[in-house]
């Protein structure tokens, strides 16, 4: 009962805290709210008219939504890059950043679930997925595995930070016996969510472009590049806009993670390109479409080369940083890498899986404005949620928010 009271007070304080801030903060939240409303309106259109308002069709039956979902699972998984050194390896470097990483994981997961939901033809019937009440096709369907691991990961990433913050909120030191096992599990679980999401695609022999044993490891490599890259960008923003200071050492360590992951990702990309093009078989046609276009259809080609160029530039800068031991261009490199992987692992992975179709038909896909609106809305929702979570986490960490027992 007492815990519940503390929790209520924490939520109340957090909401109050979330509504106060400098003018730039209000602008930021205002803009996000505008985009969320835009997304809600777009989704209303889609709900009333059906998925026909999207650019998807019987040939390319997944599009922008599932692309973003796939990418964001990686972002969520990457939060362990902060959790592991802090909680498990007792490397205190990251202790300040870790709550931010977990906040990012929660926001990314909520966005993932939102992207899957808006992709459903019958979201009202989504309760069929709930075990016992519905009919959960587990363990046969990889999608049912994904539902399980994503929700489990969300649960872990809500409970651990909540416990730590609740303790700090009451001026108590969190008990390691409670949160360390959870942190350990979350490390394995993070790898799990991304492997399972990769298996979702890799387990389909019908789509040769996805049916590759490299897909899982490549998902991990790209996630551990894009995720921490985003965290670096966020930490630098927090350094600039708040009084919460992240040590330069933490950033350097994160940069090392990003660099190594980006290098591995490039090696895997090279290996993939070699396999597709050295002995070009019938199964390489999707890759041909992606890199060169097929029979005059080349909608993805500019995106592919933009992604490839950004990827190489970013990895080059990061590697160079490692040699000269300076991080002058770190933010630029991280932004480049983030965008590169968003393209590569989003549309660059999902769309070619469907082109050419089962009988060689080539029908291209272009997202409609409604799809773009919903997508922007979900990203805005994620950013909004992340801002609120991190703002109260920082408030508690800095001692601004403390439980006052009024009774």
């Amino acid at each position: 009962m007492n815990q519940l009271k503390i929790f209520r007070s924490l939520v109340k304080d957090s909401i109050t805290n979330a509504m106060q801030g400098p003018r730039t903060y209000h602008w930021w939240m205002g803009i996000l709210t505008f985009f969320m409303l835009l997304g809600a309106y777009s989704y209303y259109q889609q709900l009333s008219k059906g998925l026909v308002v999207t650019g998807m069709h019987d040939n390319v039956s997944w599009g922008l939504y599932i692309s973003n979902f796939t990418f964001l699972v990686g972002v969520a998984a990457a939060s362990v890059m902060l959790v592991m050194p802090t909680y498990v390896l007792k490397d205190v470097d990251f202790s300040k950043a870790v709550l931010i990483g977990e906040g990012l994981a929660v926001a990314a997961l909520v966005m993932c679930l939102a992207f899957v939901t808006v992709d459903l033809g019958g979201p009202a019937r989504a309760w069929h997925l709930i075990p016992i009440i519905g009919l959960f096709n587990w363990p046969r369907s990889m999608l049912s595995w994904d539902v399980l691991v994503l929700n489990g990961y969300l649960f872990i990433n809500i409970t651990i930070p909540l416990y730590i913050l609740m303790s700090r909120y009451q001026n108590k030191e969190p008990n390691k016996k409670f949160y360390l096992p959870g942190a350990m599990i979350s490390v394995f679980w993070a790898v799990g969510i991304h492997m399972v999401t990769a298996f979702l695609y890799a387990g389909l022999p019908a789509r040769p472009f996805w049916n590759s044993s490299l897909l899982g490891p490549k998902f991990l490599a790209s996630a551990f590049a894009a995720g921490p890259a985003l965290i670096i960008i966020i930490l630098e923003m927090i350094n600039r806009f708040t009084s919460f200071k992240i040590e330069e050492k933490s950033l350097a360590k994160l940069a090392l993670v990003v660099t190594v992951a980006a290098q591995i990702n490039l090696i895997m990309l090279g290996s993939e390109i070699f396999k597709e093009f050295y002995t070009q078989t019938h199964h390489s046609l999707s890759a041909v479409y992606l890199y060169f276009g097929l029979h005059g259809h080349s909608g993805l080609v500019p995106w592919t080369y933009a992604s490839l160029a950004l990827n190489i530039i970013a990895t080059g800068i990061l590697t160079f940083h490692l040699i000269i031991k300076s991080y002058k261009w770190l933010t630029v490199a991280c932004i480049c890498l983030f965008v590169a992987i968003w393209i590569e692992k989003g549309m660059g992975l999902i769309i070619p899986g469907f082109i050419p179709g089962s009988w060689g038909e080539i029908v291209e896909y272009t997202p409609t404005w409604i799809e773009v609106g919903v997508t922007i809305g979900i990203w805005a929702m994620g950013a909004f949620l992340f801002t609120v979570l991190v703002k109260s986490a920082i408030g508690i960490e800095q001692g601004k928010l403390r439980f006052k027992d009024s009774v």
Partner: protein
Amino acid sequence: MDQENTCGHNCTCGSGKNAPVEDHGFNQTGDAKTSRRGALKKLTLGLLAGGGMAASSCSVLGDDIQKEKNSLKWDEFFKDNYRLMSKKEKNETVKRLERLYELNSGKKINVSSTGATENVLFGHAFNISKCQGYMDCVNACVEENNQDRSSQMQYIRIHEHKNGQINFELAEDDYFHEVPAAGHFYMGTQCYHCENPPCVEACPVGATWKEEDGIVVIDYDWCIGCRYCMAACPYDGRRFNWQEPQVPENEVNKDQHYLGNRLRKSGVMEKCTFCIQRSRNGKNPACVEACPTGARIFGNLLDPNSDIRWVLDNKKVFRLKEDLGTEPKFWYFMD
């Protein structure tokens, strides 16, 4: 017939429906499931009633037909997966669907829930030598199976190949010229009703499965529209309703089956069912009947005297993408 009596209280509050809800878990394998579903249903009902919504809908929407429709739709929304339904529940949902159609259009339909017959396993063979690309099968299929006219949904694709190769990449799927075109031959594809169907594995809610007689079916009311099955199918056998399907009332085939050609809704999958409403009544699928050249052979694979068995025993047959291990029950052969 008990539809009228379902809600004797003449409202949507559902107080009269408690009895059938109790029965849901009866006589059924997964009774734990449904009793909990019943609980969920009652809980939501209670919430609605608590919020005064049910009360207001009773008084404001004074229209009896509207009330009955709402009540039927309510029961439809909370019904179980077809595969887990008892015989009684199957009959009930079929009656609800018939009544709903009558309320909406004033016309009567007949929805069947006929199950598979023992010792029947359906298979289909396609004679490449005979097919001339007339597409009569495609049109018959659309009419028989109430497919969406607005998006021109078709289960069957006819591919026009140049002589000398079977290469689907180079085949023409949308030809608008006189057939048969010289130097060309034709091949039809549709759902192959695989013995080892990847779509069934993929579905996260078990809304699609293989029946005892080998037909791969979809429960249109259980499908959540995630389209994972569509990605998993190597044969382009599945279709999605991207919008509310439109079939003019006078064109609706009123002889329907729950797992077959009954009317679908927006946001769900559908596909060829070997015309389950016909084949389970001993008739050939519409495509087989419509083919003017006799290129399509359909029958029971377990019956040694069936036409399909004769083809398999006497012709050199092959299947497509056999390397995927899906074991289609759809063969091609030549004269």
